[in-house]
């Protein structure tokens, strides 16, 4: 069960000239380089091969690496994720793509009750270097069953790590790092971000996989979010700035673990914090961040950490209702006014 050791992320393969890329392309490059570097890396998933992946992430890899390393699977989520675990135990570095997060509900036994627990249950003898990628979030009118978010389910599980890259650069960095790591790692991607562009440099040294990033500096309030909600926060921050309120926007990048030191540092400066999440509020990830920040930064906070989250409903199909069901710029503005008002008064 020997497994190939790996070099660091920054120096993978050779550079490709690509100043601006879309998220799916960055992920594609990360996969390609990992597969070139390590013959133990292979992909399992529905339509990842011949079809090239529902979101083009695996495009070209089937032709380049063949069917054994890019395997089109039947619709058998629980079992092909379980097979990923088995292959990881035997020495491989499997990368499983679950076509969307919604179908992961069928594979949670393999993820939560097998992958996450084997190292511990075996007294450290076994390791499961498995990466499970899943597109998720609320996209465009996909209906309730295709808009289920699972962040809250996965972050609670000892043994798992959960990263949520939202930019092309982070997608490349964090997926590459996840493949190099020796733990089961969930890479949550957002369906509406695959085709968004952003600066990309494959040679830039990567920050720690679980670090958060300040996307905009500000002194009055800290907005914490991930995936698509980061851009909504930036939009709100822009409008707030016009009103003289400077919001600091933090992209969490990782949900398990979380980069609390960065959040604390920001709150020490702003004294006010709001978590914005696409997941439902009740028992969502925002609750953990709020509860913890309230505990560790109590003295710094002028008001308790607020949460702006999705409405407590299954996602409706109707486009207007769907938009209204998840945080919009105006929802963030209202929340900011409340906390700033509250604490000013």
């Amino acid at each position, binding site marked *: 069960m020997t497994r190939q050791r790996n070099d660091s992320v920054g120096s993978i393969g050779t550079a490709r000239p690509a100043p601006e890329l879309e998220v799916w392309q960055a992920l594609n490059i990360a996969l390609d380089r990992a597969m070139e570097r390590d013959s133990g890396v292979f992909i399992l998933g*529905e339509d990842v091969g011949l079809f090239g992946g529902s979101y083009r992430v695996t495009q070209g890899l089937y032709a380049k690496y063949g069917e054994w390393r890019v395997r089109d699977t*039947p619709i058998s989520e629980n079992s092909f994720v379980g097979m990923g675990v088995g292959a990881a135990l035997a020495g491989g570095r499997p990368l499983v793509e679950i076509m969307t997060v919604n179908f992961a509900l*069928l594979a949670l036994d393999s993820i939560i009750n097998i992958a996450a627990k084997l190292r511990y249950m075996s007294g450290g003898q076994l390791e499961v270097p498995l990466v499970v990628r899943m597109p998720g979030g609320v996209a465009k009118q996909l209906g309730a069953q295709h808009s289920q978010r699972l962040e809250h389910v996965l972050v609670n599980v000892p043994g798992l790590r959960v990263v949520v890259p939202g930019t092309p650069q982070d997608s490349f960095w964090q997926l590459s790092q996840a493949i190099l790591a020796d733990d089961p790692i969930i890479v949550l991607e957002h369906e509406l971000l695959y085709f968004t562009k952003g600066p990309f440099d494959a040679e830039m040294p990567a920050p720690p996989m679980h670090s958060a990033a300040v996307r905009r500096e500000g002194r009055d309030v800290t907005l914490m979010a991930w995936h698509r909600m980061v851009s909504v926060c930036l939009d709100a921050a822009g409008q707030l700035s016009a009103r003289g309120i400077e919001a600091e926007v933090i992209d969490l990048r990782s949900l398990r673990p979380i980069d609390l030191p960065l959040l604390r540092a920001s709150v020490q400066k702003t004294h006010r914090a709001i978590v914005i999440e696409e997941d439902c509020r009740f028992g969502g990830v925002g609750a953990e961040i709020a509860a913890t920040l309230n505990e560790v930064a109590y003295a710094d906070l002028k008001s308790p950490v607020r949460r702006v989250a999705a409405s407590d409903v299954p996602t409706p199909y109707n486009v207007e209702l769907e938009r209204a069901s998840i945080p919009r710029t105006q929802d963030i503005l209202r929340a900011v006014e409340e906390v700033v008002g509250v604490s000013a008064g």
Partner: protein
Amino acid sequence: MQRKLARQFLYDMVLARQFEQAAAEQYTEGNIGGFLHLYPGEEAVAVGSLRAADPGDYVVSTYREHVHAMVWGVSPTAVMAELFGRATGCSGGYGGSMHLYDAGHRFLGGYAIVGETFAIAAGVAYWLRMTESAQIVLCYFGDGAANQGTFHETLNMAALWKLPVLFVCENNRYQIGTEIHRHSAVPDIYRHASAYGIDGRRVDGMDVVAVYEAARTALQHVRSGNGPYLIECETYRYRGHSMADPGAYRSVLELAELRARDPLETFRQRALAQGWLSEAECGDVDKAVEAVVTEAVRFAAASPQPTDLGRNVYSEPLDLYGGRP
């Protein structure tokens, strides 16, 4: 066969074809959102099997269910309005293309997670059997769905307890871009039935009469208390998996070969040749359907949007914080 039934088959299949064509156009124009899975090429399956059932029976279908809903009695206007996400839609605009429901007609959906239809259908059947009802359940699923664990789990229980379910496999050879020989070790879906002691047979899914006859025999079996039955209908979808899929993974030859066996055209020719229908009658059907589909689109476009985000989550409004101010 009776002219009445022949006209019904023709009407249903023309409606199916034209409705889906209109849906595709409305999707392209941006009036329909989300995933849109269309049925052209597979019409004979839904029409042949559903017309063989009793109106009192239950139907459980997949996300490719517009036609099943309409043949089962849901009005084209209500279906189109649902695709538009309007309050007048059969799910009030909350469900969408993949989630059509009509409790009154016992049309129970509309399930978007592959493999969900099996257990739902078996559960309805369990209740019918337990309450000694004469009704049965029709359960639709695709060739790809047959690889989901629920297929195995449910067929075993349905057989074990002799539940009144007719499992209808819409084998269109593909699981999105993965051809059946690449997703199933034994591509003859009907052969799986025997692993549960269930009678299963394969039928030409491009021939509405063949599907109808097979379904009648099967329903007879199911209704008589002999337990479940499985029919595998060999069919084909002309379009990609959904509007988002050009279907580039299929050869032009394959497509042409199947189109040559078009269920709608072959039936029309046969009906004329057999004298079941006259040219005039066929023409009337086309016109009648055209009017219905045009009206469906007009109605949908003119319908109001649903406005209440929070209703129908629970039987009565529930405050998560127990009365939090």
